[in-house]
């Protein structure tokens, strides 16, 4: 089971500033373990954001992204009380979804 994300959402006018910390090993497929064997590729492939259940953002990411990455974007038209959920899916099919309620500005 994947560890929870840390989602920070800050409202500035009608622009929502979202910062997401994700716990993921993000293996590049290039690294060798202690025994000298290649550690297989393991990385977040897609990140999607939904506002009140409606998709508002989708990103496809590669193994070039660092371990435990920070992901940030800005969203227009959000308001206090909206439910923002973030989902990532990795190349092994593992998934994690976390949700926050947009706080007052």
């Amino acid at each position: 089971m994947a560890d929870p994300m840390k989602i920070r959402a800050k409202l500035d006018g009608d622009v929502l500033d979202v910062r997401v910390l994700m716990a993921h090993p993000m293996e590049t497929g290039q690294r060798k373990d202690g025994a000298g064997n290649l550690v297989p590729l393991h990385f977040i492939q897609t990140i999607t954001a939904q506002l009140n259940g409606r998709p508002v953002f989708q990103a496809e990411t590669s193994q070039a992204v660092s371990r435990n990455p920070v992901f940030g974007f800005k969203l227009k038209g959000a308001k206090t009380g909206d439910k923002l959920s973030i989902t990532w899916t990795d190349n092994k099919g593992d998934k994690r979804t976390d949700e926050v309620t947009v706080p007052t500005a």
Partner: protein
Amino acid sequence: MTRTLALCAAAALVAAAPVPQAAGQTKPPAVERDATTEEFEKFRAVLEADNPAELFELRGAALWKTPRGPKNASLERCDLGLGPGVVKGAYVQLPRYFADTGKVMDAEQRIVHCMVTLQGFDAAALAKQPFSNETRTPDPVAITTFVAGQSRGMKIAPPQTRPQEREAYAVGREIFFYRAGGYDFSCASCHGEDGKRIRTQQLPNFTRPEEAIRSYQGWPGYRMTGGVMHTLQWRLNDCFRQQRFPEPGYVSDSLTALLTYLAVNSKGQVYKGPGIKR
């Protein structure tokens, strides 16, 4: 769907880059501050806003609450010095004397003690591979990170009221100045004078209160190189390795004594919570 939701900016992914470690926040008066240090501090300020250490705080919080181990108990009855289950503010008041064990203990040592006594974990097994690597973060590391995070913004205030606590400080000071090993080093060789540096890294003088905070500040810390979480137990272990000393025991009384010396010297300074390192 009438309302249009527009994305203002492309997503930004912050990758970890290997950069020299900066000096901390306090300005050492004797050291001239150079451009490299200034620039790095700006870089660090950006990173601190989104520190992956928070992920380990979350994990540690979950581990604290979950019934685990052979006794299937949670750590919610663990006494970190402020009473069973009280985590808020405990970290900045450690190391301290505990009557139940009859000795002074630091945060991680006490957490391991609780895991052994309350949850029934095996102390020897926990000490076997106590430090994080790329694929594994030991539970005591995550729990210590959680506990440290619960003292964010508080002043460092380790008690020195009991004789055992004063003795730990005295022993710690002795260790700090003790020269030995292949290089005839002591902690004080690098951290006992103002204005020293290794390559681009300025070395804080831990004997002065304004700088001693830098022994505590930033730990537990997320190390960008490798993306691993480390505590002061690891940091001190690595200091002894660099001095070519024999390896100190994990959560040993010697390390607690040294941590007592560093904590007491940092007394009154504000702890900023788990940090981020190069």
